[in-house]
């Protein structure tokens, strides 16, 4: 192979936040005409490293070379000047502006601001790469994948030839992901350097030419994708051998536990969110709920948990003796008063699940503040519970007095799940329990769910990764536009079938 010249060389990059070493002496090469995947667990410093390349952070130590010349990148503007464009995980778009306004933002083109001309140029770029973007559409009217397309066009409009994508597929459906990958491959053929941050193994295998692996802020090494496999990459990433199989014990003596029927929910604007939804979740089973995000998953779980006003339908809790209790129309306190222990791990961990500025024991107390005999609450119990959760779930934290906001995503989730299962629930509702978690933390969560299942808990698992849903769940309810599109057996269903059901009710080709 001829000697290739790297477009970007990062040498000895170190970045420290307070007492956390986000990156330590990292060396990385990026080549044109190649798709490089950066792989690593949460908090391993992937995003931090790339943020230093795109001028968001400034390295404490180390050098960056572009085309062999040493450069200093102290702001995003300078990064543009070197042809580096980054598509952040949380889109950097102004909601109330149009696609065009967002794309020209920050540019200093010659002459007066000419949005019509800019829109024309945007249409040309879209044509060249096969994007579909309406330049005059407001961002808040767009779907997630449209927003992402705007981000990519924004980078191309600036003439970037080094593209960094931070977990671009986290919010896309399988179909949208395929489309994105096709575009990225076209850009590679075009001679652009592409860096993609991810922790989805099959995407790395599918798309990248080379993979660089980070572990706890340090560079472990790189591999040519075609010479490696998921097991090897995971082991390098975690630093020890990891089993990549998700356990699925057979349900023991499943009995119907939650019976949902005819559930209909409208939001504040009167838009139908759930339409006549019905299914049964049984004890000792994991019931998966699949669907494109925003198909009513959130409303469904919140309706069961007593947080969402409903229009009609019923949610029956069936205890071990077969007695039925209606949960609908009751708030969480009233549900608890019925003797139903229902735990809910919401999608928005720091918004609905935990209080970011409170420490671990304080957050444990949110569930137990009614304990204690006198006017004073029992502070010892949450403290011990916090210690127990930290120990059992291996939460990485400086101590139980640390505000949860300072923990990484995986650890925040462990704290939340730990608290919820501590109350020995009979029903456990989880929404996107592994969203944003790395592979190691994800497997910890799967194990926890399986333990609950073995205890005879009815577990409801709303997920986005179809591979996981198919491996973990006993039964899968597919939602599409608020309707139940199909109910499948997790052991026999295949990915295509679920994918089709997600996009069309009943899975047919036409409506």
């Amino acid at each position: 192979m001829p000697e290739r010249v790297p477009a970007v060389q990062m040498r000895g990059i170190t970045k420290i936040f307070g007492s956390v070493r986000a990156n330590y002496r990292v060396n990385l090469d990026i080549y044109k005409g190649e798709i490089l995947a950066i792989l690593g667990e949460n908090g391993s410093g992937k995003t931090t490293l790339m943020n230093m390349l795109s001028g968001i952070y400034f390295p404490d130590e180390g050098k960056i070379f572009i085309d062999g010349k040493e450069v200093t990148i102290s702001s995003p503007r300078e990064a543009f000047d070197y042809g580096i464009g980054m598509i952040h995980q949380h889109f950097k778009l102004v909601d109330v502006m149009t696609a065009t306004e967002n794309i020209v933002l920050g540019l200093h083109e010659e002459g007066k601001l000419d949005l019509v001309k800019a829109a024309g140029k945007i249409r040309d770029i879209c044509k060249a790469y096969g994007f579909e973007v309406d330049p005059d559409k407001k961002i808040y009217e767009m779907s997630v994948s449209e927003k992402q397309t705007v981000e990519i066009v924004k980078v191309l409009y600036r003439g970037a030839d080094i593209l960094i994508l931070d977990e671009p597929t986290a919010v896309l459906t399988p179909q949208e992901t395929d489309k994105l990958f096709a575009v990225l491959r076209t850009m590679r053929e075009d001679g652009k350097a592409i860096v993609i941050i991810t922790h989805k193994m099959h995407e790395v295998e599918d798309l990248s030419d080379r993979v660089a692996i980070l572990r706890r802020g340090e560079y472990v090494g790189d591999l040519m994708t075609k010479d490696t496999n998921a097991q090897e990459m995971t082991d390098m990433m975690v630093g020890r051998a990891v089993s990549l199989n998700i356990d699925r014990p057979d349900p023991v003596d499943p009995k119907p536990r939650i019976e949902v029927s005819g559930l209909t929910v409208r939001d504040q604007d009167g838009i139908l969110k759930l339409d006549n939804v019905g299914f049964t979740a049984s004890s000792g089973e994991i019931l998966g709920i699949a669907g494109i995000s925003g198909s009513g998953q959130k409303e469904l779980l919140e309706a069961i948990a007593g947080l969402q006003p409903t229009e009609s339908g019923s949610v029956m809790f069936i205890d071990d003796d077969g007695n039925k209790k209606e949960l609908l129309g009751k708030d969480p306190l009233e549900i608890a008063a019925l003797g139903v222990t229902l735990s809910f791990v919401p999608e928005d961990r720091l918004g609905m699940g935990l209080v970011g500025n409170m420490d671990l024991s304080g957050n444990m107390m949110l569930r137990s503040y009614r304990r204690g005999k006198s006017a004073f609450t029992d502070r010892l119990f949450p403290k011990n519970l916090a210690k127990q959760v930290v120990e059992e779930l291996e939460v990485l934290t400086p101590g139980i007095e640390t505000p949860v906001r300072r923990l990484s995503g995986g650890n925040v989730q462990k704290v939340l799940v730990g608290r919820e299962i501590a109350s020995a629930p009979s029903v456990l509702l989880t929404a996107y329990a592994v969203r944003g978690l790395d592979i190691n933390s994800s497997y910890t969560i799967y194990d926890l769910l399986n333990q609950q299942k073995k205890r005879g808990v009815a577990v409801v698992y709303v997920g986005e990764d179809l591979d996981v849903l198919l491996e973990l769940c006993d039964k899968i309810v597919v939602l599409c536009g608020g309707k139940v599109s199909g109910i499948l057996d997790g052991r026999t269903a295949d990915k295509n079938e679920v994918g089709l059901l997600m996009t069309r009710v009943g899975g047919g080709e036409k409506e």
Partner: protein
Amino acid sequence: MLDLSLFIPRAVMQGMPLLYGSTGETISQKAGNLNLGIPGVMYVGAISGVIGAFLYERSVGGAVGMNPALTILIPMASCLFGALVMGLLYCFLTVTLRANQNVTGLAMTTFGIGFGNFFGGSLIKLTGADVPSITLSATSNTFRTQLPFANTTGVIGKVLFSYGFLAYLGIIISLIAAHVLSRTRTGLHLRAVGENPGTADAAGINTTKYKYLSTCIGCMIAGIGGLYYVMDYMNGVWSNDAFGDRGWLAIALVIFTIWKPDIGILASILFGGLYILYLFVPTGTNLAVKELYKMLPYVVTIVVLIITSMRNKRENQPPASLGLSYFREER
């Protein structure tokens, strides 16, 4: 019956300080700085102008020796300087040190009013007058110079041309501000900073520069509003606390105009009219009725808030990161 040819000029003159204040506040808010210090800034602008005019009038010894250009320029320059210092102070605290904007703003209002009353009181002492006020009639007369044809064109002249130059300047500034905000690259960048500073920063916009510039310029515009009040509306009479709650009304006006300075021109005149309506409608001897009329501008603001919130149109909402400070490396 309401005499419109009397009522409208009074409403316009009453509305002008509000227009200056709300235009300044809008520019500041569009960059994400909720400057609740505006009432204080207007106070400081007014007293700074008064100090400048007072010193100049004294140094040349009365109306005879006064140069018209300097008579205008000295109070204007001192007013702008005072307001600018307030703006810089606010930016330093909230942008550089990232202090809480609400607390900073309220503190600056308290400070500004105190500053104004302290120096106002001192000047009153210096003049040794019997009444608790200073009168700068010579300066005020220059500020209130009317267009030559104002008196010869009847009702139209009275309604359209009978104002001092600052009134027209206020309208021009508002039109320019509206144009810059909605049509130019600078405006686009400014709005992006107020909506989502992280995005603006990642797009290569210097958020600190934009926040500083917009807030300082906004403060200077608001400061002129204070100067207008003393030199034009009050005919050059400063007395402590006379400015009243006009600064707060200016902030209410920002919401009323849904952050659009051009709407502000008509809205400020409407507010001005509502503010003085009680003087023009017969309210009898019952003082309580007068107070009810004085409530009108606030009632209208609340109604507008309810309507815009109910319609929930995204474009009519406050800038998304209004009141929040931004730090790039925050984790």
